[in-house]
Structure formats: C-alpha cells, structure tokens
C-alpha cells in the first residue's frame, strides 16, 4: 500500500468519528414540539375538471394583468432590474396555477432556461448584476430539482416521462453552456457555477456504467459497508453539538 493510500485510509477513519455528532437536545425538543403543534396539512384532493380547464386561463389572465400593469417592461427585465420581481411573481403564479406535477416541471424547466439566458446576457452586458443573476439561476435550478424528484416518483406515463426527458435534455444543454460561461466569469462566480453544474448533473441523464459494470471497489481497502459502532477516538471532539 502506498503512502497516499495509507493517508487516505487514515483520513477515512478520522472522518468516521464525526458520526457521533447529534442534534442538540434543545433543538430536538423544539422541533418535536413544532411537529406535534403544527396545524394539520390537508390531504390532496381531486379537483374538479372545471378547475383544470380554468387554470391555464387564470394563469394567462394574471400574467397579462401583471405585465400590462408594469408597462410590459417586466418580461424583458434582467435580474437586478426593478421590474424583475414582477416577472418572477408572474412566473410563480404560473407555477401555482399549473395543475399537474409533470406540467409544473415543464413550466419550471422553461423558467430555468430563461434564467440561464439572463445569466448569459448579464455576464456580457452587466457584470455588476452577475451574482444576483447567478443566485436567481441557482434558485430556479433548486425548484427544478425538487420538482424532478416529485415527478420521478410518479407512476410512469407518457407525460411524466416526457417532462423528465425534457428536464434531463435541458440539463445537458445547460451544463455545456455553464462550462462556457465558467471560462469567462470572475473567480467569485466560479463556486456558484460549479454548484450549478453539479446540480444539473443530478437532473441530467444517469451516467452510463463503465466497462466492468458495478463490480469491484475502486481501490483495495474500501470503506466497510456496515456502519461501525460509534466510539470516541479521542477527547478533541466536536462536543458542543453532541448530546
């Protein structure tokens, strides 16, 4: 075994001792009380067909009303502009008024595409608003990720599969565009871009198995599969967070 492998094994053993960190007793107790005292959540009910018909119309109506009220400038606004919150409010309304989970994923995927286009525009036109645009993109990405997760758990239907495929295909395209952006953005924006690429990879198509499949571990002495018993290794421990 090489010195590097020995070092990594030692680090691996060292990391395992942090498994004893637990939620502080005061936090446990508080959150437990919050759970038991929270108002009941209504179970999802089947909405009438008329709502299904009215929803897209309501969304369009709301969008037109809001955009007309803002002089039509909101739709063309970029992150950091005064009218941008209006554009976001319209988008949130569209999501709220979309009936099915797979359709909602489509709407959120469209919004993510818009955020990326805005990020690209801001990076060349308004560097001062770059971090705002990056944060807006990250937020849109988090929404797509959450919704993808919800849709992935649904029974397979053509609509569900199409929505997931579209989100995955869009993620692949976004990764390529983010990598291009990465080369011309300042260092402060790099971690945000890397996090976005990571998140897009989670949404994108699963990585293919390499030759040899899922057989042997990548190196000898891999981590044992069973969770070892937690025993303090030494006294210099993260005691403030343990019970």
């Amino acid at each position, binding site marked *: 075994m090489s010195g590097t492998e020995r070092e990594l094994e030692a680090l691996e053993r060292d990391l395992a001792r942090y498994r004893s960190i637990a939620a502080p007793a005061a936090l446990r107790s508080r959150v*437990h009380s919050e759970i038991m005292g929270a108002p009941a959540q209504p179970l999802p009910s089947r909405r009438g067909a008329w709502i299904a018909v009215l929803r897209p119309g309501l969304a369009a109506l709301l969008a037109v009303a809001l955009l007309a009220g803002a002089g039509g400038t909101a739709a063309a606004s970029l992150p950091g502009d005064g009218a941008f919150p209006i554009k976001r409010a319209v988008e949130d309304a569209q999501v709220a008024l979309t009936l099915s989970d797979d359709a909602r994923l489509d709407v959120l995927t469209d919004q993510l595409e818009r955020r990326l286009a805005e990020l690209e525009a801001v990076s060349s036109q308004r560097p001062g608003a770059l971090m705002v645009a990056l944060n807006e993109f990250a937020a849109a990405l988090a929404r797509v990720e959450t919704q993808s997760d919800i849709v992935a758990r649904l029974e397979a239907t053509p609509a569900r599969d199409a929505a997931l495929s579209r989100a995955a295909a869009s993620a692949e395209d976004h990764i390529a565009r983010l990598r291009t952006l990465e080369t011309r953005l300042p260092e402060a924006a790099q971690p945000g871009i890397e996090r976005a690429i990571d998140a897009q990879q989670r949404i994108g198509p699963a990585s293919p198995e390499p030759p040899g499949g899922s057989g042997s571990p990548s190196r000898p002495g891999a981590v044992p599969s069973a969770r070892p018993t937690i025993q303090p290794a030494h006294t210099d421990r993260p005691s403030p967070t343990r019970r």
Partner: protein
Amino acid sequence: MQSDRPVDERDLARRASKGDRRAFAALYELHVDAVYRYAYFRLRSDAEADDVTSEVFQRALVAMPRFEPRRPFLAFLYTVARNVIADRFRRARPAASFDEALDRASELTGPEEAAIRSDDARRLRAAIGRLTEVQQEIVILKFIEGRETREVAQLVGKAEATIRGIQMRALAALREVLRGEDLER
C-alpha cells in the same frame, strides 16, 4: 440506511403521508441526527445547522401528503435539505465566502463558540466547504455517515459506478484542502 427497520419505516411513512402526526414524529426521531449532521457539515455555523434542520422537517411535514411511501424517507429528507441549503446560499450576501464566514466566526464570543473555534470539527467543516457540492455530499454521506456506495448513489441521484469513481477523488481533495490549511498555520 436503517436496514434493521425498513418495514416499520415504510409503514410510518405511509401513515405520516395520511396525516398521522405521531408517525411523522417517529420518522423525525429516526432521522433528525442524520439531517443535522448533513446541515452541520454543509454550513458555516451551528446556528445555521439548527435552523436548516428545523426547516427541513417543517417543509417535509408540509410535503407529506404528496410523499410516495415506497421511496426511502431519508432520501426525501436529503433532497429537502439540499434545497433548503441552496435557498440559504441564494439569500446570503453574494460576495460572502467561506473564509469570510470563518473570520466572522472568530469574532464570536461565549464558551460554546470558543469551544468550536478550538475544535477540529470546525476545521473539517471549513475544509468540506471548499469542495464542490457533489464532493461535499460524498464526503458527508459516504465517509462521515458511513453509508454504502449503493445507498449514496441513491441519495445523491447518480449511478453507483459514478459515485465509486468520485468518492476517492473527493477524499483526496479533502486531504489536499486539510494539508493546505496545515501549511498555512
């Protein structure tokens, strides 16, 4: 992942998704420490880890009527936690870096903060914060939590072979960051 009680957990999840608050509280007791550790190592302070842990269970409770009980509940919680943390990063001051956060931590006073400052958990937490998001998740889930590669793949949403390929690189990256800090000290 709680392999000694999969049947109970699925039943609890099924009951919780139908509004059984006691069942949800039981799921909370099973997983609160794992969620807390995930938040602890992905964030900068104990206070943030506390807030995120609380928010994860609040959001999970709200989402329970839509939860699919056949899915591992912990995977669902990690997804919620990831999104809660992403939201926090988004709301945070854009230019704030991990280094700045640590500088702020050194301004804290009080016995607990003093203990944290001197603790190697803080050093590890800072080092993990310098990894990419996927590397952070793998270090936490695989090496701190001690979960199997198959389970990590499920939790992170990547192929098992991909995780197997990344995990040693993540560990090596962490070692490099820790080594760099040692040289700076």
